[in-house]
C-alpha cells in the first residue's frame, strides 16, 4: 500500500495522526482552518499557524468504489470504498479516507452497500500504519 509522501507543511498532520489525534492546520491570527496545509493564510496572509484538535466526527460528502485496473496492492482489495468526509468542526475541510469495520481493518472490510452519502462517521486510527480511518457512528 502507498504511504503518504509527506511534505514540510503536511508533516504535523501525520505526526498527530500517529499519536491517535486528528488535528487541522489553523491560522494563529484569524483562526481560519485550512487544508491541505500550506505556508500562509489565504484570509489574512499570516504565516503563523497552529494545529487545532477536531472532534473527528463528520459526514460522508461523497464516495467511490474503485475497480481494476489499479496498483497491485489495491487491485487485491478491490472493490473497496474511498469516502470523502466533511468534518463537523470545519465543513470546508473534506478528508479522503476509507470506511472500515473497525480500527485497523482493511479498506475492503465493509460491504460497499453500507456506504451512504450523508452518513455520520467517526475517525479511528490504524494501529499498524497510524493512518486515520473512519467507522460508522453508532446512532
Amino acid at each position, binding site marked *: *500500500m*502507498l*504511504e*503518504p*509522501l*509527506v*511534505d514540510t*507543511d*503536511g508533516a504535523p498532520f*501525520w505526526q498527530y495522526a500517529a499519536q491517535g489525534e486528528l488535528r487541522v492546520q489553523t491560522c494563529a491570527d484569524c483562526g481560519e482552518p485550512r*487544508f*491541505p496545509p*500550506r505556508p500562509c493564510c*489565504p484570509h489574512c496572509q499570516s504565516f503563523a499557524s497552529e494545529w487545532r484538535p477536531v472532534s473527528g466526527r463528520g459526514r460522508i*460528502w*461523497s*464516495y*467511490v*468504489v*474503485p*475497480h481494476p*485496473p*489499479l*496498483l497491485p496492492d*489495491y487491485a487485491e*482489495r478491490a*472493490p*473497496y470504498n*474511498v469516502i*470523502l468526509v466533511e468534518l463537523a468542526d470545519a465543513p*470546508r*475541510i*473534506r*478528508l*479522503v*479516507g*476509507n470506511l472500515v469495520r473497525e480500527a485497523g481493518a482493511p*479498506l475492503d472490510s465493509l460491504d*460497499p452497500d453500507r456506504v451512504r*452519502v450523508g452518513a455520520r462517521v467517526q475517525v479511528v486510527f490504524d494501529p499498524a500504519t497510524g*493512518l486515520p480511518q473512519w467507522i460508522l457512528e453508532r446512532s
Partner: protein
Amino acid sequence: MAGLKDATAIVGIGQTAFAKHLPEDERTLACRAVLAALDDAGISPDEVDALASYTMEETDEVELAKAVGFGDLTFFSKVGYGGGGSCATVAHLAAAIATGQATVGVAWRSRKRGSGPRPWKNTAVQLPTPAQWTRPFGLLRPVDEIALLARRYLHEYGATRDHLFNVALACRNRANQNPAAIMYDRPLTREMYMTARWISEPLCLFDNCLETDGALACVIVSSERARDCRRAPVYVHSAAQGLPAQHHGMVNYWNDDPLTGPAWTAARHLWKHADFTPQDVDVAQIYDAFTPLIPLSLEGYGFCARGEGGAFTEGGALEIGGRLPLNTGGGGLSEAYVHGFNLINEGVKQLRGTSTAQVPGASTCLVTAGEGVPTSALLLRT
C-alpha cells in the same frame, strides 16, 4: 484597447491517424501533424515564428523547430494542467499575434497515451501535495478523483446514469459518422452502457475517454493575413483561462463549493468579451475525459442553470438537430483522446462546413478544455 476579439483566426488544421498503437514515436507524429496543418493553411514552415503547447508535451520547441524547419521564433509558451491547457495554446498564440509579438503561430499536441504508460501508475513522480491526502487511501486515478465529484453531483441534483449515458451516446453516434474516429464502426447501446464493467463507481467503462496514440496541430495568424489564406478563416472571437480562487485541480474538495469549478471562471471572462451568448452557440466541443464533465461544463458555460446539466442532456439535446450538438467528431470519449486538441480541430471543421457530422449552417462554436482542472476555452466563429 483593441483586445483579442476576432483579431486572429485559425487557418490550418492537421492531424495524424488515431489508433491504440501507432508505430511512429511522439516526435515524428508531432512533425507530421504540424506539417499537415501548415500545408492546410498554405503557409511555409519557415514563416512560423510562434509556438504553443502543453507542459506535458514531450516534443519540445527546439526539436520541433529544427525538425520541420521553422524560421526564427519570437514567442513560445507552454500551458500546464494537462487537458486544461488545450484551448489556452490557441489563446496564447492569439494574444501574441494580436499584440505584434509574432505573425504565424502553431499549436500542437502529440501523445502516445494508447500504447504508452498510464501516468497514474508512476507513483515515484507524484507531487507530495495533494497526493499524500488521497493516494494512500486508494484514490489513485483521475477517474477516481472525478467519480467522487460525480457521485456528489448525482446525489445533490438527482441526476442519473442515464444522463451520463446520453453524453456517451452522443459522442459515440458522432464517432460512428467519422471514419477517422477510433470508435467509427462500434455503435453503443443503452444495454451495453448499463451492463458495462465499473471502473470507479458510479462511473463505468463508457464514462471514460479512450487511450489513444495521435497528434494534432493548428495554425493561427492575424485576421488580416487570414483573408489571403487557402481556407476560410475561423476567427478566435473570445478566449479565456480559468483558475478559480481556492481551486485545487482534480481533487477540488477543499472549498465552499466543489461542484462549481474552473468552467465558471473561464465562462465569465469568455462571455464578457463576446458579441453573442450561450443561446447563440450552434455547436459545442466540450472536454470529455469523463462523461460527468459535460453536465458540469454545460452549467459552468451557462447553457443551463446549476444542477440542470443532467436534465439538459435529455430528449436528444446533444445530438445533431438537438439544442446543442456536442463533440461532433466523437470527442475524447469516442474519436480520440489527445488532451482535447481534436476538439479544437473539430470546431474548425464545423465552421468550415467540413465536419463528418456537419451542423447545417454552423457559424459559432464553443470549444472547452478540461473541467475539474485549471482550464481554458475558446469561442470560434465564421
